[in-house]
Structure formats: structure tokens, C-alpha cells
């Protein structure tokens, strides 16, 4: 029960966190009209994940391991691109807000509509296939024992509640700080997703160094503990991290953080980073 609940919590947080921040951002900047795009993106991801899972199940096929890892890894790395873009989009947007110039604001979000759908879709769909397959397995087991399915759904519910909490919190804090805090949070989330994607590709054998570990703290932070689950769900922290993962994570954090914290050029909105 608990094990399955923690899986649900982890998978749910991975998907819901970015969506929560995205929604908070749109609400805070008075762009509620964009919200349907978010839900469209989420729905799209869910539909594709469920569709692929059902399709494979009905045709008695299964994605081979390499295909699954390569897909998950690639989607993760694409997702990082979008989240990074989102970080800088919010940053520049935060600046233009104070000037309250509609035109500037629109220019800053000219990429907006599309990015919002894709970002939401990727945030949810990245691990959607794994989650859908898991859900399907839990549903199949429900014939014998409803425990796994109930546990999993509880986990998802807790993840959604946490994400909602983050969203409510984001609505309350001071606007200036909102951008800094969410930006920071997203940088570490994105770095985690990147490292995770790299690990997937290492497992698929597309990148080397799977067994060269930078550190192993699985004794201190068991992967199946609640805090291990939270760390994994939010920051994609893995107790056993490969050297390549650590290098990629550090590089990303250093470069993006430096860019994020560099002082703004005066009187002009900063160019959006992509």
C-alpha cells in the first residue's frame, strides 16, 4: 500500500510541479485566458500515454526496453529545453510587468501560447507512459487486490494536493520574489530532469558510464523512503548518481543560474533566452 502510494506520489509530483508553477505564473500575470492551453497540454499528454499503453496492450505488444528508455530520456531532455525557456520567459516577463506595458508584455510572450501547451504536455507526458503502464498493471491487479490501485491513487492525490499547495503559496508571496523563487525552483527541477534523462540514455546504452558512480547515498536516503520519494519527485534526485549525471547537472545549474542572476540591462526588457 505504502510502496504503491509513494510511487504515485513521485510520478505525480514529477508531472504536477511544473504544471503548478506554470498555472501560478499565468494567474499571477493576469493571463487566465491561457489556462485552457495548459489543460489542453495535460489532456494531450494523458491521452497519448493512455492511448499508447492501451494500443500496446491490445495488440499484445510491449515497448522494448531500449525504446522505452530512449523515448523517456529524449522527452526529458526536450522538456528541459522548454522548462529552461520558461525560466527566462518568466524572468523577462517579471521585468516587463513593472512597466505595465501591454505591448512589451505581448512581445515577451509572443512564443507563449504554443510553449504553454507543449510545456504542459511534456511536463506530464515525460513520464506519462511509465505512469500509464503502471496504472494499467495496478488496475489489472485490482481483480485480486485493490491495494495497489488504491495506494497509487492516494499517492497521485497527495501529489496533486502538494502541487496545489505550491500553487496557493506561489499566489501569496510577493510578486518580485515570486519570479525569483519559482525561477530558482525550476532551475533545480530542470537540472534534475536533465540528469534523469541522461541516466535513461545511459541505461539504454546510448550514453556510456552507467556504472561509474559519482556518489551513492542510498544507505542515507533510501529510494523507497518518503523523503527519498519527495527528493526524487521534485528534484529528480537519485541516491545513486553517475559521474556523467553529476557533471551534466552541475554544468546546467552553474550556467543557467549565472544567466538567471545576471543583472538586468536598464530600461530595456531583456531578450528572451531560449
Amino acid at each position, binding site marked *: 500500500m505504502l*510502496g504503491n502510494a509513494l510511487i504515485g506520489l513521485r510520478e505525480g509530483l514529477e508531472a504536477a510541479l511544473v504544471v503548478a508553477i506554470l498555472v501560478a505564473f499565468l494567474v499571477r500575470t493576469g493571463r487566465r485566458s491561457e489556462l485552457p492551453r495548459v489543460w489542453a497540454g495535460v489532456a494531450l499528454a494523458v491521452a497519448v500515454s493512455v492511448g499508447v499503453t492501451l494500443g500496446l496492450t491490445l495488440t499484445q505488444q510491449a515497448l522494448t526496453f531500449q525504446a522505452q528508455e530512449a523515448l523517456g530520456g529524449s522527452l526529458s531532455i526536450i522538456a528541459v529545453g522548454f522548462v529552461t525557456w520558461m525560466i527566462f520567459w518568466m524572468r523577462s516577463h517579471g521585468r516587463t510587468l513593472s512597466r505595465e506595458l501591454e505591448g512589451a508584455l505581448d512581445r515577451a510572450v509572443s512564443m507563449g501560447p504554443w510553449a504553454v501547451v507543449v510545456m504542459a504536455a511534456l511536463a506530464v507526458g515525460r513520464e506519462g507512459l511509465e505512469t500509464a503502464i503502471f496504472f494499467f498493471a495496478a488496475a489489472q491487479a485490482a481483480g485480486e487486490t485493490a491495494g495497489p490501485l488504491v495506494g497509487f491513487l492516494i499517492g497521485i492525490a497527495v501529489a496533486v494536493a502538494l502541487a496545489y499547495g505550491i500553487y496557493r503559496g506561489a499566489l501569496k508571496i510577493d510578486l518580485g520574489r515570486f519570479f525569483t523563487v519559482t525561477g530558482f525552483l525550476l532551475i533545480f527541477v530542470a537540472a534534475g530532469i536533465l540528469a534523469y534523462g541522461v541516466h535513461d540514455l545511459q541505461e539504454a546504452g546510448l550514453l556510456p558510464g552507467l556504472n561509474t558512480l559519482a556518489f551513492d547515498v*542510498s544507505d542515507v536516503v533510501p*529510494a523507497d523512503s518518503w523523503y527519498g520519494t519527495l527528493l526524487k519527485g521534485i528534484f529528480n534526485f537519485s541516491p545513486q548518481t553517475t559521474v556523467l549525471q553529476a557533471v551534466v547537472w552541475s554544468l546546467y545549474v552553474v550556467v543557467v543560474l549565472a544567466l538567471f542572476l545576471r543583472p538586468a540591462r536598464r530600461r530595456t526588457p531583456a531578450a528572451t533566452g531560449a
Partner: protein
Amino acid sequence: MSPVTRTAAGLTSLTVAAALLAGCTSTAPAAQGPGDGGPITVNATDTACEVSTTQAPAGNVTFRITNAGSKVTEFYLYATGDRIMGEVENIGPGLSRDLIVEVPDGGTYTTACKPGMSGDGIRAPFTVTGSAQRATDTNAELAAATAGYLRYVSSQSDALVTKTSEFAAAVSARDVAKAKTLFPVARTYYERIEPIAESFGDLDPKLDGREDDERDPGVAWTGFHRLEKDLWIDGLKADSPQIAATLVTDTKDLQGRIPGLKLTSAELANGAKSLLDEVATGKITGEEDRYSHTDLWDFQANVEGSQAAVAALRPVIDQKDPALGPLLDQRFEAVDTLLQGYRVGDGYKLYTQLTPEDTKKMAAAVDALAEPVSKVAGTVTA
């Protein structure tokens, strides 16, 4: 375009892209497991990892892992060096998950359950047999290899009968000089196919027994070496012609058994190796032809027989390990070059004319050859 239409158009193209992406990644049909046609079941608990079978044919191998424990577990199939062939994560308590792994090559793999999602897991060896796409071709080629080698054996046994008959005629005619010349020549055909002859346990002692070999009470010492002792040491005796006639009869017996011979590729490859062991344990020491000292003729014949067996298997060797064939060529070449250095006319130097340095060099060359030859059996049956 209005925002709404743009969104709709975009959504459609995204859906198509996602479907395409899912469509082009490789899928595998759920494979037939061994026996009952179902997947291999893995019963995972917090302390155990019970895999229903430790063997499967190459191709798509399907595992169905059921977590009967209380911890979340993962299941892995590793190749050598912990390369992941396949894994399935997030197997929650009470859940069953399927893992389909493409394993194209036979060999030894490792299964592992990881209760608690950490550590090296509970491991066990897992054997994959055959080679998926190449299995039928390989079987056909192996069959061709053994058939080809049996033709070689057959031709050698024919020549053995012919030459032994000539040798026996010389013994009967009391032509010692001619008999001495023919002795190592006739033996050549025997030595080339020695493992085959040895597989007939009753024939080899009659043909190739030594004076000091153990024999059943009442069984006389016969064969090549009995006549060798007569020719070189004691002089021909009254019963020498009769021993020679028996020798011919025994070689004909051997010849007659060849057509019914069944041989596997592994036996063929092992025969190639055992011929070299013959050289290393017998010919190098000079014990075999202790009266005539014509050991180098036997040495050469053993190596040629080994080479013939390897040559028959060569297409399969090249297919499975491209590096092995050239190495074998090179080592056979080295032994051959060394032997050519001891040629005298049609024959070879006598063993007594070799220095300890010479035999050491030969032993080294044969050992160097035996090393890749010993890999042939494993390579062709992999």
C-alpha cells in the same frame, strides 16, 4: 488564425507527432516463453527472486514479474559487465509487470530483483541459448561442416588401409628397409584422424597400443608399435606377418565404421583440440615412436588433422568471431614453418636428432596454437 484555431491545429499536429513517435520506436510482440508458451514468471519478495526457468532461447524473452513483497522492487536483465539488457522499475507491492527483452545473442546473463530499488539486487545466472536470427543458418552451416569433415575422415581412412596394406606386404616379404620407410607414412593417415579412431574404444588399443599399456589378460600386444619394435629393435619374428595381417584387418574395421559415424560440431571442435594435446603430451616427448623415432611424422599429421577440423568449421567461426580465424591461420602457419625446418627429403629428422632447444620451441608453438583452437568449440556452439 484565431488563437482557438491555432490551438486546435497545433494540438492536432502534436497528437500526430506523438503517435508517430510512439509508432516508430521498436515494439516487440509478447514472446513465447519456454514450455507452456507463457512468459517466464519471476516471483519477487523482499528477500528472494524466484525465476521460473534459468534458460531461454535467443530472441524476445518475456518475464512477468510479480512483487509478493512489501517493498517496491525493480527487475533487471544484465549482460556481461552489468550492461542492462532490460529493466522494469516501479513494481509496487502486489503488482505484476511484464518485461520484454530483445536478446539476439546466446550466452550467460544475470537476472536481478532489487527490493527497495537499491543495491546490486538479488542476482542469479540466466542462460540464453542459440542465436535468434542466425540460428537456422548456423545449424545448416554446422551440419555442412561436420559432413565435410566426415568426408575428410573417410578419405584418410581409405588411404590408411591402402598404405597399411603396402606396409604389411613389406613386412610379410621381410623387406625391412621398405617396411621401415612405409611405417611412418602409413601412420600419418591414422594420426590425422586419431580422435575419430580413439572414439572406437576397442580399436585404438589394437592399432596404436604401446608395449607397456595395460591389456586384459590373454590379449596380445598388436598394432603399429609391435611391428615398429620388431623392425627397429628385435628383428622380424615368426609371427610378424600375422601381426601385420591383423593390423590391416583392424584398419579395414575402422574404415567400415566411418560411414555410420555421427558427429556433433562440438565433438569436431574438441577433436581439433585433442589432436594438439596428443602432440603436447606424446609427440613432443618422443615416447610414442620410441624405437623408430619417427615422431615428427606423427606430429605433422596431428597438426594437419587439427587444421582440417578447424577448416571445416571456418565459415561458422568467421560468422561468430571474426578475429579468431586469422589468429588460427597465423598460429598454424607458425607451427608449420617450424616443422618445415626439420624436413629431410620426403620425411623428417628423427626425434633423437633434436636438441632440447628444438623440442622446447615446438612445445611453445603448439601451446600457442592450442590456445585459440581451444576457443573454437565455445565459439561455434555459442
